């Protein structure tokens, strides 16, 4: 048999090889045509897949202008939503295969392991001495006194609200927690979701919890200290804040099924004027200029401080603020110098900060007040005022201040708290248990 069989075998293998190589060729050709020109290719990993509005628009704008100014440079952007971004980032990290330039959250739970492992390239401080970064804003991008990343924004939490809805139902914009609870009841009665929140994303719940802790205690350090000292369960202020949060859930303070709502769903609910308030960070400053939103919404959107709690020690100007998102360059990149140049180009104060602010796309990481033109949107003005009036700021939020697993577990616990799967007491006990495991 063997001769005939062999022939057939050979032809089968050939067919298989053919199938594979046809696709290989298609692909090979594509690659070949791309590599004939002598270009520097920079891989850029971004968490902003929307390249037409907000920060994504700004990022793309700067990338385009850089390529225009440097025709030999080709920048390939891989842009993913936050969650897939985090997962993909970890794949790159685990295989020590970092893209040449990448977005990072300057938080110990995210960036510290990367800096420790030596995967990010050092940025010499004298290279950015004229960039206008405050030393405090660089803190979480530093390790052992060396700088590894640059923050792009100033992030702080505010309460966005819809003026139109507050007027229509004759509700006063809440300045105290009790007023907030009452406002929630009125909006509920009228079929309007009081506060839109993206509970599926969990992190927002942890931040809101910290907000309440700060408003109860007036002490920005309290939550971090309690966790570091592993004395969480018996802390009355932490307990009170957890109860406040549950209380807000109980009066229907958030939209229905807020625990299952993702970022887009919550944002949309507010933008469609179906929710009166929206608890979110300053990075949503672009809402007032977003072409996808209705004129009526853009006219009505406004922002205010998170309310204080009567009996609590926190002031409305004790705010949660940090420098989260930023960029870093890979230490093992073959085009490290080029990537570094790109980073320094983008983060130059006349670009990210100035252009970003003047187009109403971001609240920059550097001081932006000198770029004010007077033509700012309401949100820009309000946010500037809220931030500049701050009497204390939190820095990196509590769940991000420790290990990656601490973050995952703590956020899940927060979600369980608001879903009433655990009591406030149990919540604190679990956090303490977690701190003992994760915090050295």
């Amino acid at each position: 048999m063997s001769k005939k069989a062999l022939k057939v075998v050979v032809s089968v293998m050939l067919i298989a090889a053919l199938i594979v190589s046809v696709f290989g060729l298609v692909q090979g050709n594509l690659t070949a045509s791309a590599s004939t020109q002598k270009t520097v290719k920079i891989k850029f990993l971004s968490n902003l897949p929307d390249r037409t509005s907000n920060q994504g628009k700004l990022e793309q704008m700067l990338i385009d202008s850089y390529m225009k100014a440097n025709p030999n440079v080709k920048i390939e952007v891989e842009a993913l939503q936050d969650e897939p971004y985090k997962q993909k980032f970890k794949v790159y990290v685990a295989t020590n295969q970092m893209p040449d330039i990448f977005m990072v959250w300057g938080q110990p739970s995210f960036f510290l392991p990367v800096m420790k492992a030596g995967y990010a390239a050092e940025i010499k401080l004298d290279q950015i001495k004229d960039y206008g970064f405050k030393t405090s804003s660089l803190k979480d991008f530093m390790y052992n006194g060396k700088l590894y990343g640059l923050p792009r924004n100033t992030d702080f939490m505010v309460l966005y609200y819809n003026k139109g809805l507050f007027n229509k139902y004759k509700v006063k914009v809440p300045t105290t927690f009790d007023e907030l609870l009452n406002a929630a009841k009125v909006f509920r009665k009228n079929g309007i979701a009081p506060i839109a929140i993206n509970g599926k994303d969990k992190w927002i719940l942890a931040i809101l919890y910290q907000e309440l802790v700060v408003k109860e205690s007036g002490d920005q350090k309290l939550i971090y200290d309690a966790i570091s000292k592993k004395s969480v369960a018996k802390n009355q202020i932490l307990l009170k804040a957890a109860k406040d949060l549950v209380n807000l859930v109980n009066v229907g303070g958030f939209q229905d099924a807020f625990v299952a709502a993702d970022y887009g769903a919550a944002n949309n609910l507010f933008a469609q004027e179906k929710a009166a308030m929206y608890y979110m960070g300053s990075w949503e400053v672009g809402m007032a200029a977003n072409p996808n939103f209705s004129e009526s919404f853009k006219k009505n959107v406004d922002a205010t401080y998170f309310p204080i709690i009567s009996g609590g020690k926190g002031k409305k100007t004790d705010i949660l603020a940090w420098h989260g998102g930023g960029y870093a360059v890979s230490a093992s990149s073959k085009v490290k110098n080029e990537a570094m140049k790109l980073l320094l180009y983008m983060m130059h104060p006349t670009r990210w900060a100035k252009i970003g602010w003047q187009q109403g796309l971001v609240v920059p990481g550097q001081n932006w007040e000198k770029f004010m033109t007077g033509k700012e949107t309401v949100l820009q003005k309000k946010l500037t005022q809220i931030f500049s009036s701050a009497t204390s700021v939190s820095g990196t939020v509590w769940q991000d201040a420790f290990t990656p697993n601490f973050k995952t577990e703590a956020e899940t616990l927060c979600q369980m708290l608001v879903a009433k799967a655990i009591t406030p007491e149990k919540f604190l006990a679990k956090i303490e248990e977690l701190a003992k495991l994760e915090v050295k």
Partner: protein
Amino acid sequence: MHRVLSDKRTILLLVLPGLLIYTFAILFPIILSVYLGMTDWSGIGRPNFIGLENFKKIIFTDTTFWKSLRNAILLALAYVFVQHPIALAFAIFIDKVGGRAEKIFRTIFFIPCVIPVVVTSRMWVSLYDPQYGLINKILDFLHLGFLKQQWLGDTKTALISVIIICMWQGFGWALLIYYAGLKGIPEELYEAARIDGATGVKLYTKITVPLLQPVIKVNFTIAIIYALKQMETVYLTTNGGPGDASQFLANYLYIRAFNSYQYGYANAISVLFVIACLAVNVLFQKIFKSENYEF
């Protein structure tokens, strides 16, 4: 002839290409996974060997692991005791209806199976949405407002809501396979039974179900494997939440590996996961074997 059928070279050529690709893309990684499961690797730097530490931790202290396994088993039970009886009943209905209707309904019921999971999952998230979702609106429309739920947003209903999506999506497969089984039962057997005086429902419980036994077995096996390996739907709808109320193993190990930087631990989960799959299947085969139908 024996020589032809036992020619070593031919056998090698037939089996090798598939075997290589399978070994390369599945066995190698799994071996690596067993090793990594015995380390504390975070995904960065060097792994430290810690023996069975991870396994002990998972088995004795990880409640989410057990809950995920329980949820998978609940999904499997839902398939077997809810989806499949309905699918079998509808297969019988379709078979009985005959004519053009038979073909049309057969087609309709399979449609959800051919829609990408990404689409159906996102669609169901919208359907369940309490603000604008279809489900609560229909309950209102039917004056059943008191049945309205927060669906995916409530620990009490999240799991069942996810299970409903899975059952909806996979219904067509189960139905079509039963339908095929029905078509394979020779008409004479029914005739014989009718002569013996069996009619209606009895005809089905006495003849159809026993004769379908091999099909039912295949169908159950597929359903159980699918239930245990469930990932996409959960990932795209609740991501296991609220808390870990609707968590499933594959999704849980993904979170551990990619959100918590606990790659070693996640690999230990996946090793236990494979073992659990094998155990459930062996158990299931045993149960099935002990029930012998006579015909």
